[in-house]
């Protein structure tokens, strides 16, 4: 127990520090694929955040509640991070149904992210939030559906259930695929970054944030990505926990998260942005067959 809590605390600190570095690595990879030089180091996203923190606090007109909401968002991100599994079930959840807990926390994060943007009253942000909400209707539904089916397939509402899986199952693999796509979309990557679409909405949801608020929001954004990719990494690593043990599970978890981050980054570089009317329809075409397949396979026990 002590070992596991220590590993969680260390991993938590690593992820908090690592998320902006991963963004820096992504920027370097992106630059390489663009035939550019890119930022000077992989720590550029950290330098950006630190620079933003050194700036004065400018509040959007009429949006005095925005910094409070961004603060709340940041806190919620940290809470979610500390309560998620790290390649092994997290003992800090005290035996709560932590799959459902994580689902609720992720959806709360998405909602708070939108609400903090809406507080500014900026028309670009408003359109951005409506777009995120429109996309979220489809994406978060299938994120929830995937996690609920996960509990049915594993027979437990806790991530600990995954560690007890003895044989590989096709239904589980399809759920994993569906959740990986849902996490990709929820992390606001091209083609699904329509809420922040820079050319038409000038960063949309982020438009009114500047200085420390923007710094905090950006760090929260990177951590949110780490949480989402961490969820997928957990689904890969948790079934191996009985074999790997806590230390190697944490290492495997972190490695899987980093690899996923980089794969997702490369996918987003080779694609272009979608549109609010095209994106949900396109997603439905992917999610529906997957959902039908994993529900049938889950029912017949394959």
């Amino acid at each position, binding site marked *: 127990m002590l070992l596991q809590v220590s590993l969680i605390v260390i991993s938590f600190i690593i992820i908090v520090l690592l998320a902006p570095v991963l963004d820096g690595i992504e920027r370097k990879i992106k630059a390489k694929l663009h*035939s550019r030089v890119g930022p000077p180091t992989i720590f550029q996203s950290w330098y950006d955040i630190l620079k933003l923190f050194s700036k004065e606090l400018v509040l959007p007109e009429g949006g005095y509640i925005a910094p409070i909401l961004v603060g709340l968002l940041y806190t919620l991100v940290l809470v979610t991070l500390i309560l998620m599994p790290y390649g092994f079930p997290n003992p800090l959840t005290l035996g709560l149904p932590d799959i459902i807990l994580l689902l609720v926390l992720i959806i709360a994060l998405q909602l708070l992210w939108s609400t903090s943007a809406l507080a500014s009253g900026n028309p670009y942000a408003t*359109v951005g939030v*409506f777009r995120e909400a429109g996309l979220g209707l489809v994406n978060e539904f299938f994120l929830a559906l995937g996690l609920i089916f996960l509990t049915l397939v594993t027979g437990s509402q806790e991530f600990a259930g995954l560690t007890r899986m003895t044989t590989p199952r096709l239904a589980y693999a399809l759920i994993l695929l569906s959740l990986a796509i849902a996490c990709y979309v929820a992390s606001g990557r091209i083609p699904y970054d329509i809420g922040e679409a820079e*050319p*038409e909405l000038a960063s949309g949801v982020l438009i009114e944030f500047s200085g420390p608020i923007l710094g905090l929001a950006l760090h929260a954004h990177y951590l949110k990505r780490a949480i989402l990719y961490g969820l997928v990494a957990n689904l890969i690593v948790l079934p191996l926990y009985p074999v790997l043990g806590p230390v190697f599970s944490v290492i495997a978890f972190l490695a899987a998260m980093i690899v996923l981050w980089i794969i997702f980054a490369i996918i987003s570089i080779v694609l*272009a*942005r*979608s*549109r609010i009317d095209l994106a949900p329809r396109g997603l439905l075409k992917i999610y529906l067959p997957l959902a039908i397949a994993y529900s049938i396979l889950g029912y017949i026990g394959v």
Partner: protein
Amino acid sequence: MVDVEPRLEDVEKIRKELEVKLGNIARRIEYVSGAGLIVEVPKDSIRDTVKVVHDELDAYLRVIAGVDERLIKGVFSSYYVFGLDNIGLNIIITTYMDPENPSIYTIADIAPSADWYELEMYDLLGIRVKNRQLYRFVLPEDWPEGLYPLRKDVAHNIRPPPTPAGKGAITGPRIPVGPYHPALHEPEYFELYVEGERVVDVRYNGFHVHRGIEKLGESRFTYQQVPFLAERICGICGFVHSVCYTQAVENAAKIEVPERAEFIRSIILEVERLHSHLLWVGVACHLLGYDAGFMHAWRIREKTMVLAELLTGSRKTYGINLIGGVRKDINRDKIDTVLKTIKWVEDEFRKLVEVITSVPQVVKRTSGTGILPKHEARRYSVVGPVARASGLNRDVRKDYPYAAYKHVSFKVPVYTEGDNLARLLVRVDEIFESINIIRQLLDQLPSGPIMAEDIEIPKGKIGVSSVEAPRGEDIHLVITGKGRPYRWRVRAPTYQNIPALKVMLKDAPLADAPLTIASIDPCFSCTDRVIVVDVSTRKRKIISLRKLVKLEGNGCMI
């Protein structure tokens, strides 16, 4: 050498047809080489004349130039230049107005693209256009009433104190796109009125960076200085403007330009087109969120700037053009390097196009969006890739051949879909055609001088010239004066294409708006060339699309 003249039998046929259709309305119908068929009519007959030319002869409106000719003829005049692109003939309807209180009837209900020209005539010359709503268009709201900067009795360096503008507020939800916006690389302002994500209304507020270039050319610069000023009209298609100006003067003064200089001009014009189209492809990719395409298009574009530097000494704003020829020659070594470079550009761009057109979102978001049907394209007299993507086979290089284009063979890509994808494909095809044209021109480059020896420019002559800019036809009208042009009218392609955006943007999703605006490859600095004033506009008027359409239906444009 003046531009290629239309065939005389064609001119004669049109002249006779006009004589029959206009009856005794026309005071004079005369062909002037280097300009076109001049049709002089009384000002009250302008509408009947335009109906004949625009509707019956199927000519499109190219430019309208109001002129303060009080110093020469004691009147204000107006030149309506229509084009019969199938035979390469300009029909210039000329009319004179009272020097004290100049006014003329609107033709904007007959030819909608006349809308802006009429507003500009009113704003800058004080020519009242009757039977339509007139409002401050080019000049800022705080410019004093009754002060018309293009009149000859107004000094070019006048700086009137701003008059207080009334306060007015706009209500209702709107999405401002500009004056500063990531999708626009120059200050310009589109107000998109939205219902949800659907654009229901568009308001364009342009002319933020007026520089008084026409006025400067008419009052401060000399003939041979103006090409350098003209080149600064635009940072991307500047050479087009300088060639267009020099050709207009050469046409007016019948100056024979050496053939080698014409070839060099054409080569540089095509290098400029390569640069401009590659830049645009990059911008379009960026607007679609496909930054990989953006960066690679600009990587290829970089080579075209190196090419320009090799040939002219400058990466952009080449400054090699003069009336009578060019200032910089092309030698054998350069030709080899150019051929190698364009081969590289061709290969790299071909690969890039394959990649771009295989990205699903690029195809989905460009096809079927920002549609401009052919009949609307014709009505708005749009030009360049916008016209060609809507099924109009309109290219000045073929229709009104100039410089060395008569010596090369090339295809004019025409698509009928009229959507953003069609405009993208037109430009992609044109890049390959430009490379093809450069190869042919270099192959046939004649020897000889690059500058005419005797350059004399008589007063009071009119010259019209057009050049196919990357964005469409650029047209300059020059009336010669003493030491400098008496009147120099510049009409950039964007001026003709922006009004058609009303059609393209209406009922489209908001997400497509920046791409659709960019799909005409707008060049605002070309369009905004009229006068310099610090803008502090507070009062604004909303002209809704619905109102516009409604008023059009009633035979009256705003």
